[in-house]
């Protein structure tokens, strides 16, 4: 039992905390992710012709989605952010949501799943994700996406979702920080253009923003308190992911309230017209075949390598 003075003091501290929280403001972040073929050895299967054997290949949270989830977790650790995750996919995509929750300590998992969504290109997908994000519990301050999917590899869904949300888009982000007082985000972006050295650009923008995470993104936790928070939330994430169904919600087209004409196939300007094997180019070189265990032959190869290198020096 508290005596009354202690209780008052306690309430005072509590309200101060609440007050400062109110002034500083809460940070709400969402991540959009994708269930993708698992390209790791042992899980991936290739056809004899070198193409992906989709039937035999397992699925998992895409590696770029995982990096985006790490970026969201950085917000959780540093700013006590609330994390939500959304994905469009078949019912088994709940696996990816669970994996991303384990990384990000999310407390809201959304799966948008409907036959009507199937066959959508990036524009039709972005529309579903936009509506889904707007249906999340909180109004989002930052939405993260991965750089690109490993199977489709277009990298378009993120920026198109950003555009539909009306959020400022920041691409190729390698690190970020948020000022909760001014509601500004600072981000470093990696820009690589053909024939130019790469540039790291630091930008500042008011929330809300949409951040597409660069593959080289790394979270860094430098102080003891940050590392403690990291451990605390990581533990929480494990507990949550063990019971992910409690946080999980599935929506079909009707429940989301998306307009049928701008999602799925009708909402997709592009179609895959044909898929063909890349024609084998005519041999550009005539290779001399050498037996790899024949030492004498290898000596000759090294002799040729030496010639190539010497030509280089003269140049």
């Amino acid at each position, binding site marked *: 039992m508290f005596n009354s003075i202690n209780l008052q003091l306690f309430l005072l501290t509590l309200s101060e905390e609440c007050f400062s929280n109110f002034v500083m403001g809460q940070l709400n972040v969402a991540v959009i992710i994708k269930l993708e073929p698992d390209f790791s050895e042992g899980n991936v299967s290739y056809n004899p012709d070198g193409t992906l054997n989709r039937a035999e290949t397992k699925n998992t949270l895409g590696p770029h989605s995982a990096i985006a989830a790490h970026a969201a977790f950085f917000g959780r650790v540093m700013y006590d952010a609330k994390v939500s995750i959304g994905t469009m996919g078949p019912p088994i995509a709940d696996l990816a949501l669970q994996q991303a929750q384990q990384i990000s300590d999310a407390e809201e998992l959304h799966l948008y799943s409907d036959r009507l969504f199937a066959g959508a290109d990036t*524009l039709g997908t972005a529309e579903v994700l936009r509506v889904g994000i707007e249906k999340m519990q909180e109004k989002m301050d930052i939405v993260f996406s991965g750089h690109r999917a490993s199977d489709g590899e277009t990298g378009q869904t993120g920026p198109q979702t950003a555009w539909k949300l009306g959020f400022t888009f920041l691409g190729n982000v390698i690190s970020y920080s948020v000022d909760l007082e001014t509601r500004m985000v600072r981000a470093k972006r990696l820009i690589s253009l*053909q024939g130019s050295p790469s540039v790291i650009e630091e930008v500042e923008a008011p929330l809300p923003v949409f951040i597409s995470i660069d593959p080289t993104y790394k979270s860094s936790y430098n102080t003891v308190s940050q590392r403690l928070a990291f451990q605390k939330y990581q533990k929480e994430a494990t507990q949550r992911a063990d019971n992910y169904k409690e946080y999980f919600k599935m929506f079909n087209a009707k429940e989301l309230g998306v307009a049928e004409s701008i999602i799925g196939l009708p909402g997709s300007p592009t179609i895959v017209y044909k898929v063909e094997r890349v024609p084998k180019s005519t041999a550009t070189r005539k290779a001399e075949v050498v037996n790899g265990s024949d030492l004498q032959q290898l000596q000759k190869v090294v002799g040729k390598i030496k010639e190539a290198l010497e030509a280089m020096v003269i140049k």
Partner: protein
Amino acid sequence: MVEKYRHLYVVVELDAGKLIPVSKEMIGEAKRLMDGFNQKYSSNEKVVAIVLGSNIKDLSKELIEFGADAVIYCDHPQLQEMRNVIYTKVICQIAINKKIGGQIEPQYAQDFKRPRYMFFAADSIGRHLSSTVLAGLNSGLASDINQLVIEDIEMSHQQKTAGKKETYEKTLEMYRPDFSGFLWTTILCLDNRNPAFKRDYHPQACSIIPGVFEPLEQDSKREGQIIEFVPRIDQRDLRVKVLSREIIESEVDFDTPRTIVSFGRGIKDDPEQNIKLIENLAKELNAEIGVTLPMSKKPYSISQMLDSKYMIPDRVIGTSGHKTSAMLYIAAGVSGAMQHVWGMKDSGFVVAINPDEDAPIKDECDVFIKGRMEDVIPLLIEEIKKQIQIVQVR
């Protein structure tokens, strides 16, 4: 016939106020395509370059010399730095501007609605810019294209035509290699003619892989139209501030022609040890190390140090990475997907190490060493130590 959609608009990119190579490559390919188009359809549609920036008016002439029939330039201090939101807004304004359409071709001023086709560069800027512009224009985009064809296509499609046979005239076939490099996917952007969901999808747009197409010879005698566009700029679209820009020296250098040792899925039996072998070989030859695209997807569980050093996009040689013209190129455990071959075929002397004589890389090398890298590389290293004094070229 009413022609609502005309011309090919090419959004070019700059670095420090200069056109980057892919800009000229896109204009060159656009010109080749539209020359064929105009001949085939007895038409007169143009290649229109769009350039945004600050103090960039002089670039218009250069763009014409590289093949543009017309240039729309937008010169504004707020466009000095490439920022996605404002760039997207301005490009969308240009694309749907009827007046500009009329300036390019007065006889179509009444009908013109939007460009027929649009090109962007598939790089750190253009990939995102193309995505947001096409979301803004509500039309279709294919990314990372390396071949383009314009044809009339007769097809029936469950969704697009409600199963009826229809002819889509002047359709841009956009070819993109998939991640494996063995498959080529053709993407089309088509209007919905299905009565249930009738809707136009124009422009047909794509982003183009840098380095794939050849630019035209610069010709100072070439003439063209230069049109200024004055944008409407909303302060709310300028909220991103660029605080600093820092040029970084990449740890990976494929541009200086010298020696590259690259590896692919052939390391799979013992990735950790094989990468170390490759490191040793590279050290003996003072070589840079490259990888194939699948390696950058981190397919193996290996030590963090090797993983973060090698299994990264920055080291990829191929259409989704670098193109090299190394004097000596050693491909160890690389099958030779088109993707990868494009990035290394300009090399001088090429050695492949592979147990499979049917691997396509055999057609792209001068010496094919048949064997597993585990067995071959140690022998090579021994021999190199005997024969070659380290050649320093840097």
